[in-house]
């Protein structure tokens, strides 16, 4: 058994040398000098059986011996991993760290174009200009639109307010255009998109970014002494829909009011007279 263990170490260390990018030659050489005389004495059959298989498989059978080599160069991973796997993981981690660093730098310094693209893809919105002295809040029009924001769809009309998952790249009092419109309708006409209507646009204004009320997530397994309590507040954005474009809106009816006023005036004059 001791002989077999020595063979294992020797083979694993040979593979270590072949795989490691920055080998620490001194401990390996020292171990190598000791190992060969064991090889000569031991059975060849075991060596032959072991060599063609993958290093990972060999190392997995005897994980304890791999710690000496790899942990010299790097801080110990704290887990009992294989030689080859450990090195591969470390290499991958390095690459991942580098790519993550690049990604982190990339994410934190996102350009406006990237933000707009992401917004357009995920939230289906385009940031318009900030609110100035515009008369955006019109009276109610009998027109509706079915709009998709993220994964949620709403049937929306003028003057409605919608609570949506937090929209990242917009501030309060920003004008938005929701460009993913699935259906438009008015009193006389209905336009159905397949799946989206390309020329339709729904204008909205961001009213607030706020947290929802706290929801307590309580987990319990009875008779197992397991109980967990977690609080969660969802971040929401409130949008006020101001305008729906892409459909012929029915004309408003001021004539009724003017007629009423005319009749009232006539009555008043008649009474006064």
């Amino acid at each position, binding site marked *: 058994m001791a002989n077999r263990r020595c063979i294992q170490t020797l083979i694993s260390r040979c593979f270590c040398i072949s795989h490691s990018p920055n080998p620490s030659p001194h401990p390996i050489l020292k171990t190598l000098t000791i190992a060969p005389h064991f090889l000569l004495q031991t059975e060849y059959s075991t060596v032959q059986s072991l060599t063609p298989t993958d290093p990972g498989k060999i190392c997995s059978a005897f994980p304890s011996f791999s710690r000496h080599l790899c942990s010299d160069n790097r801080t110990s991973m704290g887990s009992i991993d294989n030689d080859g796997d450990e090195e591969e993981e470390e290499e991958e981690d390095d690459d991942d760290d580098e790519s993550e660093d690049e990604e982190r730098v990339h994410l934190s310094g996102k350009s406006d174009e990237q933000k707009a693209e992401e917004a357009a893809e995920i939230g289906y919105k385009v940031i318009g200009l900030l*609110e100035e002295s515009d008369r*955006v*809040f019109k009276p*109610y029009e*009998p*027109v*509706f639109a079915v709009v998709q924001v993220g994964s*949620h769809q*709403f*049937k*929306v*009309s003028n*003057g*409605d*307010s*919608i*609570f*949506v998952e937090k929209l990242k790249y917009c*501030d*309060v*009092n920003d004008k938005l255009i929701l460009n993913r419109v699935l259906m438009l*309708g*008015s*009193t006389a006409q*209905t336009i159905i998109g397949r799946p989206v209507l390309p020329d339709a646009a729904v204008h909205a*204004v*961001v*009213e*607030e*970014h*706020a*947290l*929802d*009320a706290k*929801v307590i997530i309580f987990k319990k397994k009875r008779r197992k002494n397991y109980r967990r309590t977690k609080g969660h507040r969802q971040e*929401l954005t*409130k949008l*006020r829909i101001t305008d729906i474009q892409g459909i012929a809106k029915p004309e408003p009816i001021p004539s009724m009011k003017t007629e009423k006023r005319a009749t009232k005036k006539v009555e008043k004059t008649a009474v006064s007279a």
Partner: protein
Amino acid sequence: MALRGVWQLNKLIVSYCDWGGSSRGVRAFMESHLPAFKEISPQLEVVSELNRGQHPYLKGLYRNKNERVVSVKNMTPEDILLCATRLRNSLGRKVVKLKTRHVTKHPSVQGTWTTELKM
């Protein structure tokens, strides 16, 4: 935090203590992040009050006479900025669980559906 274009948060009071350790973050916030925050929201009246011997807090006074007090005891300046931004971004309404995510006064455009409706 704007109902029909009108900002809802009128005043933000930053109450701190110049001796206590729990106010350390607030003091750093007042030096580092508060001027930038004031520039971002020019319509907002930001007042800093010295309240010795007490833990620090942020108090937001809204248009609907609602007061929201957030304790910023032992918080980092970045967290305090986040709290202040949240106060600025919210309406003064009571934090209640939402009944619906779509609030409307005119639910039907083409007429409410009934069983007797014939297309």
